[in-house]
Structure formats: C-alpha cells, structure tokens
C-alpha cells in the first residue's frame, strides 16, 4: 500500500513548484473536481437505493429461479467497464456525457450493494420482523425500523466500494466523454508523458477517497446485536402474492437484461455477423491463465487481509491504519498502480514481470474488497464459542483453526470472490506486469478491442463472464450457506 503512495509523492516532487501551482489552481482542475464529486455522489446514491431494493426483493419475494436470479444480478461486475460501455454506445451513439455515465456506472456498480445487502439480510433475525408486523407495522415501516438498522453497516461498505469504483473507472468515463480525475490522469500519461502533473492529480484523488472513507467509517454504527438467542429464524416468510411477485420479477428481469443480457447479446450478434473463427486452444489457455493469476491474486489478498483483520479485531491501531490505507489506494486508476509497480518491480529483475509480482499487484489493487469482509466476519464469531473452546483445552491456534475460521469462512470467501472478479478483468497493470507470453482473457480481449475488432473480442468477453459465473453461483447457493446458519450465523458481509 505504501508503494503507490511513495511513488506518487516522489514523482510529484519532481515537478517544479510553479507547474504544481498552475495544475492545482487552474479552473479546469476545479471543474474536474466538481464533476468527479457529483458523479460519485449520484452513482453511489442511486446504486445504493436500487441495490438495497433489489437485495430485499430477492430475499423476501418468491421469485422463479431464485438461485439463478441471485447469481445473475451479480454478474454485471464481471464485464469490463470499457466493453460494457462500448456495447451501449454502439447501439445508442447519442449516449454521451454526464447522465449517460451515471446510467452506465449505476448499472455496473449496483451488484456491489446487492452482494453486501444480500449477505447481511441472510443474518437478519426474521422473528423480530414477525413481532413488528404483529405490532401493526406495515412492510415499509418494518423495513426501515427493523431491517435497515441491521444491514446498514454492510450496505454502507458496499456503497463505499461503489464510490471507489467510480473514482478509479476509466473505461466508461473516457468513452462517454466525462472529465473525472482518472480520465485526466490517464490522458496526461498518454499524451504528454508528464508524469509529475499526473502524480499531483493522483494525490488529489487519494485525498478525495480519504475523505469519503472517513465519512463511511463515521457513519458506521457500532455493531448492535439484535438477536434473541432463544429462537432464530433466518429465512423470512416469502411473499407470495401475485402482484408483488410480478413487480419483483419484472424489476429483476429488467436489471439482468440491461446489465448482462443486452451487452452479451450485442457481442454475440457482432460475433456472428462477422463469423470470426474461434481459436479454442488459445481461448482455453487464456481462460486458464486468467484463473491461475486471479486466484493467486485473491489468495495473496486473503493472506494479507487476514492478519490485518485479526489485528484490527484486537484493537491494533497500526492495523486500523493499514485497513484505511488499503481503501485509499483502491481509488487510484489502474495505470498509476501499474506504473508504481513497474518503478518498484523493475528494480528487482528476477521478480519483474513474473506471475508472483502480478498476483501481488492484484492483491494490492483489490485488497480493499476483501479486507472489510475478513474483518467483519471475524468480529461476528461469538466470543462464548471461543471461550468454550478454551475451557475444553484447545490452544489458541487450534481454536482459530477449528472454530473461528470455519465460522468466518463464508464471509471471507465472498470478499475473496470480489478480489477474484476484479483481478480477472483488470487491464492496465496486467499489460505492464504479466509474464511475457502469459496472456489472460483481459489482455486477449484488449488485443482485439484496441483495434476495434469487437467481433473477435466477443468469445473472450463471454469466457470472462462464464469464468466469473461459476464462483458467483457457488457463493450464492443458499444450501451451502444455510448449513453454517445452523451453528451460528457467521454469514459474511462486506462491511
């Protein structure tokens, strides 16, 4: 986490103080600042409302194919922002500017909130819900007074991921022509090789994300235990009346159509209209490389996140600082992280452009997505179980392995899944750091999209979604999850 920051400060110091002043003080920077903030705020607000509403619906209403729907609404995050946006504007060329960016970004970030809210909803004790209803509260009032306070922390954490995603996104804003910090920074790198000015802008971006993160942690309420220990109902009485089911089905269907089916169909049509030949062996090799690199990345992220999570649990302030630092770095554009790791890695020839450094880069880029999940999952393991284990003569490490880890596992898994999904489609850092000849689905796809061959990129984009679909589907299988609920609901969330 220190690597990119040290790099940026060093580069920024290279610039003469005069350039520094002109860059920071010019009116354009203020405009970029305002655009970035408004865009982020709007997208976060909309994605949060839509995401919570959809998660609630998926959890409470009897939908046809519930498992499939839960997996499908998550999958839009597997489509790279650039490809997603391209699909939309190739059909609606007039889709340009600020509002188009709000639309596209809300579609592609809502899954972060859905995932967070869904896993928190599974932990809610629905017997309280029943009590509230017998006391005469209607569904809406029950939601706001009983359910929402219990899922709030998780949802805010999901919204934070949305905010950081918008801050670091390049694909959508560049294609739609919206000037955010990330676009300005990337253009500086592309155009004038002016690395100092870019570094100054990147530091401003770091400051913005720092402010957002501290707002998030301030709104976080201290975990209240609403649970009555005698009787826990984890599965709500599903709403089955026709009108609710119809509305819920239509909403879910529309989202899946807009966020997933539409871009994929467009790619498939492009593919068949040109009847490009698929090189299956290359496709398979790229898919394997993607899985290997992203899994390793997710694994390293987990290894780094576990100690941070455990130490934060024990109240270490250094760990809390690391926890925040990881999030701050998450808002940086991929090209900045890539170049920072190039500057760092090329000092060590034996390490540079190896799978190890690539996995490390993924872990660094996306650890923010798992560190929170690890922290909260650990915190939800009941202390009394740990105490009982100790009285039964287990050592601390035995207790950790046999009690804490299994209980926290589902939550840790869903955080690790997010790292995996993000690493799979990462491009700028991958292009700079992958081992030579080790092509992933994302780099192969870029090979074609960079020269406008969307028809030939289509099989790789589809493979990317397929590879993403398997873990997403597994993690959403309630039968796996419910087994853990029998013991205690250590179910994961992202807060």
């Amino acid at each position, binding site marked *: 986490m220190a690597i990119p920051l040290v790099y940026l400060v060093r580069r920024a110091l290279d610039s003469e103080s005069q350039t520094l002043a002109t860059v920071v003080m010019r009116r354009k920077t203020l405009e970029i600042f305002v655009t970035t903030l408004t865009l982020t705020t709007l997208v976060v607000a909309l994605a949060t409302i839509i995401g919570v509403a959809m998660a609630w619906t998926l959890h409470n209403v009897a939908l046809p194919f519930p498992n499939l729907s839960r997996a499908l609404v998550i999958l839009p995050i597997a489509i790279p922002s650039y490809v997603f946006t391209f699909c939309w504007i190739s059909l609606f060329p007039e889709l340009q500017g600020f509002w188009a960016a709000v639309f596209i970004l809300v579609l592609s970030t809502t899954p972060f909130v859905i995932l967070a809210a869904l896993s928190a909803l599974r932990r809610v004790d629905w017997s309280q819900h029943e009590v509230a209803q017998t006391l005469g509260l209607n569904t809406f009032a029950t939601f706001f007074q009983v359910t929402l306070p219990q899922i709030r922390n998780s949802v805010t954490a999901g919204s934070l991921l949305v905010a950081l995603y918008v801050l670091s996104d390049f694909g959508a804003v*560049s294609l739609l022509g919206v000037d955010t910090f990330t676009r300005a920074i990337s253009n500086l790198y592309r155009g004038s090789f002016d690395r100092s000015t870019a570094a100054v802008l990147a530091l401003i971006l770091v400051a913005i994300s720092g402010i957002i993160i501290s707002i998030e942690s301030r709104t976080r309420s201290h975990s209240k235990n609403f649970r009555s220990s005698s009787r826990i109902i984890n599965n709500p009485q599903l709403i089955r009346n026709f009108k609710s089911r119809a509305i819920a089905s239509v909403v879910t269907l529309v989202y899946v159509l807009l966020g997933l089916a539409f871009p994929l169909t467009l790619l498939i049509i492009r593919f068949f209209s040109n009847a490009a030949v698929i090189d299956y062996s290359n496709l398979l090799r790229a898919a394997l490389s993607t899985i290997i690199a992203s*899994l390793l990345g997710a694994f390293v992220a987990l290894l780094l996140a576990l100690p941070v999570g455990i130490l934060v649990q024990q109240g270490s302030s250094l760990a809390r600082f690391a926890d925040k630092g990881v999030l701050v770095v998450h808002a940086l554009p991929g090209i900045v992280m890539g170049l920072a790791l190039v500057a760092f890695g090329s000092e060590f020839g034996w390490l540079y452009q190896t799978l190890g450094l690539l996995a490390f880069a993924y872990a660094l880029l996306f650890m923010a997505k798992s560190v929170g999940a690890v922290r909260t999952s650990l915190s939800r393991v009941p202390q009394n179980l740990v105490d009982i284990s100790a009285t039964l003569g287990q050592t601390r490490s035995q207790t950790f392995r046999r009690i804490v880890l299994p209980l926290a596992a589902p939550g840790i898994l869903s955080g690790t899944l997010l790292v995996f999904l993000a690493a799979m489609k990462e491009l700028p850092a991958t292009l700079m750091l992958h081992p030579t000849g080790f092509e992933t689905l994302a780099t192969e796809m870029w*090979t074609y999209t960079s020269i406008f061959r969307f028809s030939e990129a289509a099989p790789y984009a589809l493979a990317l979604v397929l590879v993403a679909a398997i873990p997403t589907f597994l993690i959403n299988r309630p039968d796996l999850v419910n087994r853990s609920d029998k013991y205690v609901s250590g179910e994961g969330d992202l807060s």
Partner: protein
Amino acid sequence: MSPTAFARLRKRAALFLSLLTIASLATACSQDSAKRETITVYSGRSEEFIAPFLEKFTAETGIELDVRYGDSAALAAQLLEEGSNSPADLFLSQDAGSLGAVSSAQLFAQLPSQILSRIEPKYQSASSDWVGVTGRVRVFAYAPDRVSALPQTIDDLAAPLWKGRLGIAPTNGSFQAFVTALIQSRGEAATEQWLTAIKDNEPVLFEKNSQIVEAIDNGQIDIGLVNHYYLWEVAEELGREINAKIDFFQAGDIGNLTNVSGAAILSTSKKQSAAQKLIEFLLRDDIQKKFVSDTHEYSLVNPALWPDGLPALQDVKSPAVDLASLADLRRTQALLVKIGLI
C-alpha cells in the same frame, strides 16, 4: 459451514491449488525453449497486424521474439519508469511521439548507418536513435451520399455548412499529434483560432478514430478527421462494405500530416545486433510491400509502394513537420483544455 464440511472444503482447496501449481509449472517449462537467441520486444503496434511479420522474422533468422503488446504511449511511460532496468531490447511504436518521449530521456541506442540510410531523414530521429517503419496519413473520411462538395483545407471545416456534421477524437494521440503540427506550422494563436472555430461548429466528439468512421457509416455524422487506414479496419470489423470514403485536403495542407510507426533499440539491451537485424528486416523491400498490402500503410523505404486506391506519398504533399517534436503534447493539451475540447 460445519467443521467437517470445512475440512472437506480445505482438502479440495489444497488439491486445487496443487493442480494449479503443476499447471503453471508446465506452462513455464513449455515456454523454456531451446537455447536460441531471444530478444524482448515492447510493441505498441497491435498483435493482429504485426505478429505475422514477427513470425516470419523468427522463421528466417531463428531469433526468438518475446513480445509484450500494449498501447504505445503506455509502453513509453513504462520504459521511462523502468529506465536502465528495462528488460526490453526493442520498442515498436504506433507513432513518432512515443518514440520521441523515450528518446529525449536518452534511453535509446544509436542506430548504425546501414539502417539510417534506408529511410529519408524527415522520417527518422534527428539524434539517430529511432527510424520510421511505415507511414500513416491524416485524411478526412466522409459519407459519399451526403457530402457533395469536399473540403479543400482544414479551414473549410469551420464553415457553417459543416455545423454539427463533423466528428473528431480530441483525446486521441493521432489528433493531438495533428494539432501539435498545426501549432508548429501556424503558431499558437492561429491554432487557437482554428480550434475555436471548429468548436463553435459543434463537432461530435469521439474517443477513437474507428468510432468516427463507424458514425459516418451509420449516419450520425457526415465527415470526420481520421488516419487513412481506419476505413479498412472498420470495414473488416463490420464484415461488409461501409458507406464511407476517404480523401485528402489539397496538396501541402496541414490536414494531410504524415506520421510514422517506428522502431528503436534500448541502449541497455545486450542484444544490439539481433535487435538491429529485426529493424533491417522490417525495412526490407519485400516486407515493406507486405505492410502496404496487409495493413494498408505507406512504405517509407520504397516510394513506388502505396496502398490500393490512394495517391502516392509524394503526391499527398504532406507538409514538412519535425516528427520528433510531436512528443511534447503539453502545449497542445493545454490549448485543447483551454478551448474546452478535452
């Protein structure tokens, strides 16, 4: 998850991880080819177009190539960060600007005279450390059924006739190189005037050249400023004839700027002679001919070679511009920002 289920999961995870390790070791071994000489190439030219040439080179010389593809400007930035630690031997760039940026950090080696003498001085570096390989010309693309009177100079595009009908890609490197050349030939004030006039004509802004050509084909706009080869690229992508043509401004107009794709050798490379062989190969007559027919670019070595259906390079009458100076886009970007195009 129960403890037993967790143990099962852990076993499976262990099995999976060990399989992964085996798989990655296997890939690593298969890449470890015989002890033939290998050079590392950073290529800003896309794999689709350049790979056939590179494969032919390996087949002829036995020199293996480890190629890393990327965006030219991003690769140049990467080379600047790597500095003297760069593993790269050779840099192939889409444009002169990226070459110029790395050249001014003095990271390239001097090229021998047998390479330099193949190429006209205006298509190579003044400090003899990079050469152009192929030529690419700025043109305007238009819809033949909706455009009858063609513009003669870039100034015509500011006429009310073109209001809302013109497409440009102001964040794109090729457009910025053109504006940089415009500043060089007319000065900053005149360039600002032209850009302002164009902006007042409400152009449609795009991210890439190819989007402009596609927008002409689908009727969104009628004319646009692009590089000449995008016409073929878009037609190939869509798999059909497209409703767009290209043409040049009058002889000598700055709108006909010729930029080059080029090559350079890193001064830290320990394989100078193998890298030189690759550049010599790319400049060979038969290979230049293949560039012209396969990627529709202009040959910089043989003036008798040019793409079908276009005029020869000497008839395009591109204005004289110092290509190396196109690296510094700072003034250009500042101007574009000031006018509000980026």
